[in-house]
């Protein structure tokens, strides 16, 4: 075997085509894909779900399953052709020279094996290391990935660790053999933003420390900007644009890349005067791809007869280093032209008070112990929540998993009853009324849009029937004919064709299903809608359209929207007021501008810093939170955030560890739950600054 020359590409993919073979037909998943990763470089692969980015990663690992096959092209790793390598040789490369980090850490770790054993296995296979030495190495790598108490972790089972810790273990496992290439497949998608920020920092540092090349797959452009040197944008099985991150972000030369950037909420976008521009149409199914340019049917610059004539090749751009685009018209388009601004709408004034919570608490009792019994413990899911919401208003509820935002939604909806406190809905106290005891009028006025549109529709009922069913339950309409008419009107409202009434949910895309979910929620003329992460399961280009639809309906119906989300970008884009929750407490509440600019609650500050923003002009201060969110079963004394707060030393006398901070009113309608003095709070610097253009 010839020695590999470090100045050559470490990974070279040329004209790779991959197909999956089903009984019916061959489904091409990736077509004519080329990319090169140099030593020490990190390459980003971006695209929406189904664009083939994970398939490329698995092809590099040669793990395409029984149905997948590489039908053309080559993958060369350090000059060796992986596409024709024997299983034996592949096994030597997997895990030792190329390692992979996966999307779901919990599922990727063997549940019945101790973490230490799983880590030690790697050097034992690839370096013939003894068990004791391998364990010692595992212990060292665990501290390298900044996990506390390595000895305990080595002996732990995966389920005993938190999601962030599990992902660090998966990273540690990948690093055990010092691989030359690391493939990261959406490594942080399943994690919270503050945890994500820690993982991203870790990956960057380790990449620099060991000189590892990386293939970083993500749908999140902001993360790519944070981590990668180069990126490759994929659309429907093809690479459409490749180049340096800065070039592609600032001087994109493919209409899809441009459309993608215009559909994500960047700072400055605003639902009223600078709305997002959704990409029209839907992603083509693999066997229904159009002739010529795949993006053609959705492209603003489409020219009939030219763009749909023949397959479009990659074109190398002049003057720039390795910047390529798969667009015929890249030289003719005026890339600097500002986007056509959609409708500009007026901000609606908040109306009457419709929802008022006072000192709401929700506790759960659980038992511990492997065989039942054990001490009874109380989970304090919600602690003294007080806030109001008015007509026409969008109130965002922000926080990481375990902060109690979903419990709050359940208590509001009546799926759970409150332990203490009051919920005033219109003119009624509903804190003790479970949903079964609420009258249909009340139920139809307070509705919910769910996170996962794939699971919330009945798979064996037509779309129209499901909406009619909701109408019947809400006692809307006088006759069946009337309800059918109303159902069709609702479909119009959510901008779905009326013909969809006869379709089954499986025939709809994710965005379309979510629209059905919205139609169902508004069937009874809902006045308050709790939207629990309504767009987080959708692709970026669809998110904008669904979010704008919600805003349109809100304007028409004067609805109050409680928007639960962990995605601060979308929150900043569409909410009027923001409530930040941590461990069951409201730590900050104010208008969107107040919350997104100083003074901050220390947690809000860290949260803002953690959100990746896909804009090269944005400068962020990096604040990485250490550790995990404490368990709600055993919250820390005093301030809930004190265990991770970087400002704690600024408060004299250890007050944070002893007393729950009082609610401090900063400005009109802006409140912060913190012990910090007013001077310090006022003196905070903004986390995000936008450099002048």
């Amino acid at each position, binding site marked *: 075997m010839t020695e590999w020359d470090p100045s050559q590409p470490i990974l070279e993919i040329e004209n790779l085509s991959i197909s999956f073979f089903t009984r019916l037909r061959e489904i091409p998943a990736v077509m004519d894909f080329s990319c090169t990763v140099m030593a020490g470089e990190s390459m980003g692969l971006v695209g929406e779900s189904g664009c083939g980015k994970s398939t490329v990663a698995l092809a590099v690992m040669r793990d395409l399953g029984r149905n997948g096959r590489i039908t053309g092209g080559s993958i060369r790793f350090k000059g060796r052709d992986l596409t024709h390598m024997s299983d034996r040789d592949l096994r030597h490369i997997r895990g030792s020279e190329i390692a992979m980090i996966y999307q779901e850490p919990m599922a990727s770790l063997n549940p019945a094996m101790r973490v230490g054993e799983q880590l030690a296995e*790697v050097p034992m296979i690839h370096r013939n290391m003894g068990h004791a030495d391998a364990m010692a190495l595992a212990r060292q790598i665990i501290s390298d990935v900044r996990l506390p108490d390595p000895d305990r972790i080595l002996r732990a089972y995966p389920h005993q660790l938190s999601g962030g810790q599990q992902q660090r273990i998966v990273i540690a496992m990948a690093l055990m053999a010092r691989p030359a290439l690391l493939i990261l497949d959406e490594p942080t998608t399943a994690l919270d933003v503050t945890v994500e920020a820690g993982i991203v920092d870790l990956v960057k540092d380790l990449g620099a420390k060991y000189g590892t090349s990386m293939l970083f797959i993500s749908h999140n452009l902001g993360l790519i900007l944070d981590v990668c040197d180069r990126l490759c944008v994929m659309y429907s099985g093809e690479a459409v644009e490749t180049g340096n991150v800065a070039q592609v972000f600032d001087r994109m030369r493919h209409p899809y890349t441009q459309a993608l950037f215009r559909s994500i909420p960047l700072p400055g976008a605003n639902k009223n005067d600078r709305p997002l521009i959704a990409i029209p149409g839907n992603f083509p199914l693999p066997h229904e791809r159009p002739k010529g340019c795949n993006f053609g049917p959705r492209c603003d610059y489409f020219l009939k007869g030219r763009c749909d004539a023949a397959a479009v090749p990659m074109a190398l751009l002049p003057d720039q280093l390795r910047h390529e685009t798969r667009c015929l018209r890249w030289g003719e388009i005026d890339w600097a032209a500002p986007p056509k601004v959609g409708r500009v709408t007026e901000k609606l004034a908040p109306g009457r008070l419709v929802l008022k919570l006072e000192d709401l608490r929700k506790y759960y009792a659980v038992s511990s112990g492997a065989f039942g019994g054990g001490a009874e413990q109380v989970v304090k899911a919600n602690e003294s929540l007080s806030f109001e919401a008015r007509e026409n208003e969008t109130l965002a509820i922000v926080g990481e998993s375990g902060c109690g935002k979903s419990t709050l939604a359940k208590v509001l909806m009546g799926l759970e009853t409150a332990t203490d406190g009051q919920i005033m809905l219109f003119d009624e106290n509903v804190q003790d009324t479970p949903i079964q005891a609420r009258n249909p009028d009340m139920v139809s006025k307070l509705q919910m849009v769910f996170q996962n549109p794939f699971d919330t529709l009945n798979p064996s009922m037509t779309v129209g029937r499901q909406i009619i069913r909701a109408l019947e339950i809400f006692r809307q309409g006088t006759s069946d004919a009337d309800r059918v008419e109303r159902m069709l009107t609702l479909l119009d409202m959510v901008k779905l064709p009326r013909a969809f009434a006869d379709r089954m949910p499986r025939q709809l895309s994710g965005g379309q299903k979510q629209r059905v979910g919205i139609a169902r929620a508004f069937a009874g003329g809902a006045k308050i809608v709790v939207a629990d992460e309504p767009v987080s399961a959708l692709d970026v280009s669809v998110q904008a359209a669904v979010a704008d639809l919600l805003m349109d309906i809100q304007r028409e119906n004067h609805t109050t929207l409680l928007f639960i989300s962990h995605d601060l970008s979308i929150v900043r884009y569409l909410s009027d007021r923001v409530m930040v929750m941590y461990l069951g407490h409201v730590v900050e509440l104010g208008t969107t501008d107040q919350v997104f600019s100083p003074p901050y609650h220390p947690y809000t500050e860290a949260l803002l810093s953690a959100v990746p923003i896909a804009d090269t002009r944005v400068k962020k201060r990096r604040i990485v939170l250490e550790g995990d969110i404490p368990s709600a079963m055993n919250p820390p004394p005093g301030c809930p955030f004190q265990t991770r707060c970087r400002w704690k030393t600024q408060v004299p006398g250890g007050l944070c560890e002893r007393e729950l901070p009082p609610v401090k009113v900063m400005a009109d309608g802006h409140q912060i739950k913190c012990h910090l003095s007013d001077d310090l709070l006022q003196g905070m610097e903004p986390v995000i600054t936008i450099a002048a253009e």
Partner: protein
Amino acid sequence: MLFFILRRSGVMLLTALALTFIVFFMTNLTPNLEKLAKSEASVRMSDDQVASWLDSHGFTRPLLARYGEWLGVVPGWTHTDASGRVTGRCIAPDRTTEAAPARCGVLQGEWGQSTVFKRPVSEILARSLGHTGWLMLWVMLVMVPTALLIGVLSGMREGTTTDRVLSTFAIATTATPEYVSGVILIVLFGSATAGISPILAEWGWISGRTLFQGTATSAMDKITFWNFGLPVITIALYGIGYIARMTRASMTEVMTQQYIRTARLKGVSFGQIIVKHALRNALIAPFTVIMLQFPWLLNGVVIVETLFNYKGFGWTLVQAASNNDIQMLLACSVVAVLVVLVTQLISDIGYVFLNPRIRLS
């Protein structure tokens, strides 16, 4: 853990009480008792004589009181006949009235007298359980490893020829009840005139006239491959199919899990993936099934022991049932209940150790 076992034992005790009461009630129905009277005293008794026999043997007392007597919590009945001779539940022929204890039931270790075998129930039960114990042991030793091997082999590469052949075998065996497979096996291997034994004997491959013996009676004295093979195979075959199917389903599911992909992409070889990563996870589900096989084996041995004339627990149960041996039946039911409940307790505890994620509550 201790609390869990205590609680489960409490539940077990209650279940055992309820079940034995049901059996007690069924075996003590009036026609049964009349039959007992006639078989014990005289077949040609008049109805009046039957009534007085029942009265003098304590069978006319209330049902609950008699159940209490059987348990040993209520004092046994006594009866003084016209001649002044005192008889009673606890007054054995060789005991005097004064020396007899007030209570004599299960709690005192007195299981009563078997009417069929004319011996104390405890003695018969101990002997037959001993025989069945050996049978079960061998069945388990053959069944569990074979079934797991078949299940793992067919499950690790779903859809291959190996998988299809082994799955067909598993389905065929589990679809054949013992009374069918037992007869077929006897014809095939245990007959001097049919099956393969005559051929083998002709070739001189076996010294006797048959490969296996068609009856297991001699196995009660000394277990050999020759006399014990067929009953063991008959029972094991059915269970093999069942457990193998469960193991296969569990194995195929595990093989699609992401942590198996992780192991594969770590460079672990296929054999090591199966042994180190898949096996423990795949055995969690079949473990419960294997534990469920114990009570089911009791049921299987009824047929097989009768078929092969092996005087174990199943054979005794059949004899007791067909001859209206009330005490024997009751004792058998207690054993059956205990076997079911204890194996389930073991299964639950074992489950916790096999699966680190599980928490019982």
